[in-house]
């Protein structure tokens, strides 16, 4: 009996589908009317689908979007968190589409699984702004991201300046198999080419995590007596390496370089300001730029480039305080 009733509910879902169909023969007709004409006097709801709120970088991305959107009275931004689950992120976007949002901002968890649903939004004539990680194909309005190879190169060039006579570098890498890790490694090698005496004497994977970075650095420090620079693929791992060096009493003998430079209290800029890291490189969250793009599309009725690659900035002792203050000025 219960089974029958459950089936009824399922059936009801289907029946409702059938009932709805006359009005909705119309997925398309509806969508063209819902794709509001752009203009300054409209009200626009933007859906922001985040891959994983639990990462500081992504939390900051959300905050940047919130801050930027607060200065645009026509915008209301709704947030969804996929908690690193592709299937959940597909549902998140579907739910945004049900709510008939006016624009979609998405930072995809992975490319292939999100491509379909992003295309669905794009086909409904909803502007789609893709952040940080791409989707496959070209069914999106604009992509805004950083260039990890260029960031790695900037880090390498910085190390070349630090060690004009050559020296030994150990590398603490991001998660094995992750594209940003491969790109940050590749760029770095290009950057240090200018000084042939610089050698990468050892490397290990710290999985992007502070505690893993610390662990791996401890082992690397045991095995290598002569280290001039520790290059980590992100700031938390660089901080972990610093802790490992400190407990070995060697933190003054080497320099620590990270990437990301999040302008938050636990981020890389503060670590540079406080002297633990000697340099870090900004990896833009793209949050402000995403709202700028939405503004152009929805309010100014303008177009945006298909791809915007944001440049990195080198953070050292000299500019850390200023950059931090400026990034949090709103």
């Amino acid at each position, binding site marked *: *009996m*219960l*089974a029958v*009733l*459950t*089936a009824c*509910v*399922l059936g009801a*879902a*289907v029946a*409702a*589908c*059938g009932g*709805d*169909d006359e*009005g*909705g023969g119309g*997925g398309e007709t509806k969508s063209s009317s819902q794709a509001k004409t752009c203009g300054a006097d409209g009200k626009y709801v933007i859906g922001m689908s985040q891959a994983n*709120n639990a990462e500081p970088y992504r939390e900051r991305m959300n905050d940047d979007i919130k801050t930027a959107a607060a200065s645009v009275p026509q915008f209301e931004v*709704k*947030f*969804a*968190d996929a*908690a*690193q*689950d*592709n*299937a959940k992120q*597909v*549902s*998140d976007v*579907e*739910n945004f*589409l*049900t*709510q*008939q949002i006016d624009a979609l901002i998405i930072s995809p968890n*992975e*490319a*292939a*699984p999100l*491509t*379909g649903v992003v295309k669905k939004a794009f086909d409904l004539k909803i502007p789609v702004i893709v952040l940080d990680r791409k989707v*496959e194909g070209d069914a999106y309005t604009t992509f805004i991201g950083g260039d990890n190879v260029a960031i790695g190169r900037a880090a390498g060039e910085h190390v070349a300046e630090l060690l004009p006579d050559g020296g030994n570098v150990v590398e603490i890498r991001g998660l*094995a*198999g992750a594209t940003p890790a491969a790109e940050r490694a590749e760029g770095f090698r290009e950057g240090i080419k200018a000084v042939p005496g610089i050698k990468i004497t050892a490397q290990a994977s710290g999985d992007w995590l502070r505690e893993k970075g610390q662990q791996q650095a401890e082992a690397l420090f045991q095995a290598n007596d002569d280290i001039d620079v520790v290059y980590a693929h992100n700031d938390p791992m660089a901080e972990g390496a610093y802790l490992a060096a400190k407990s070995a009493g060697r933190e003054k003998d080497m320099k620590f370089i990270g990437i990301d430079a999040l302008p938050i209290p636990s981020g890389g800029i503060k670590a540079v300001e406080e002297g633990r890291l000697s340099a870090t490189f900004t990896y833009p969250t793209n949050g402000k730029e995403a709202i700028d793009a939405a503004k152009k599309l929805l309010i100014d009725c303008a177009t945006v480039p298909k791809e915007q690659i944001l440049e990195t900035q080198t953070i050292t002792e000299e500019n850390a305080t200023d950059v931090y203050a400026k990034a949090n000025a709103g």
Partner: protein
Amino acid sequence: MSDVDGPGAPAPATAGSGASAGAAPGGRGRGLQMPKGRAQWLELLFRFQSLFGLLAVFIAAIVFSPARNGELLFLTTENLANIVRSVSEIGIIAVGMTFVILIGGIDLSVGALVGLAASGVAVLLMENDYGVVPAVALVLLIGTAFGALQGLISSRLAVQSFIVTLAGLQVARGLARIWAEGQGVPLAYGSGKGHAPESFSVLNERLLGLLPVPALIFITVGAVAIFVLRRTTFSRHLYAIGGNERAARLSGVPIGRIKVAVFAISGFLAALAGIIHAGQLNQGSPNDGAGYELDAIAAVVIGGTSLFGGRGTVAGTLGGALLLGILNNILALNNVDANVQLLIKGLVIVAAAALLTLRSSND
């Protein structure tokens, strides 16, 4: 006879409850003034816990549904199709989990098996040039064998299934990483090597443009499972083991064989969910399905199945899975903060568990 408490379950310690509830409850000698109506009402509430819950959440979803141009967004074709689609994977896993929990066990390996099956089928289709049928058959076989092995170890070595499947979770995750070489394997459709056959993308289609194929599979699995639990000797044995394993053993129930079969079913269904996962997302990744075991257990518990075994139904589980799906959907449509959503889902699980306890003490 409803399938609620299982046909012919010995229900040793709780004789007289459940199935006899339709009879006058007066014979219980408890609360002599207990109004007959109220007792029956309570009994009804307990028996159809997940159905009432489902109805309540469904009605709440209609009430709280945002509207656009006079149309309730929750009730749109698209949205209802999205809901049944999104619950189908967890629902299929939860059906298998119901069998396991009915015999007083637990299966923590199912989420990792989803990852193993998803990456396995993707690798077979993309890199090994398998056709859809052999690839699906092989992956289902692997899932079934994996589950059966866990059941065998659990019963032969008398290790709790919690431990065996906790180990199984690690093993399956490791195998998935090895098989897919640590990377997600995207599916590209087409013909020839390096392409998956077009027919596999049927998992992204809808029957008659309405019912998503994954949901159709989920409904079929649910219907078969309900039938199995109502009509077969196997089912009597399940409830017997869960009710009182020693008594069941003494009365000649082949406990070892049943355990192997139950874990094999759970492994099979987890692999099926993994294949659907890969089809829906156009990718198989070794990290897929992380945490799905907990969602499945939640659906089973909300469905009124006791974690002590011996009591519960597949129909309840289907209701539990749908309830969670609708809850997720309506919270999202109302843009409830992601963190608050977690709190609300936690509360629903606690409420379901509390009802179960209340039910046991009411017996």
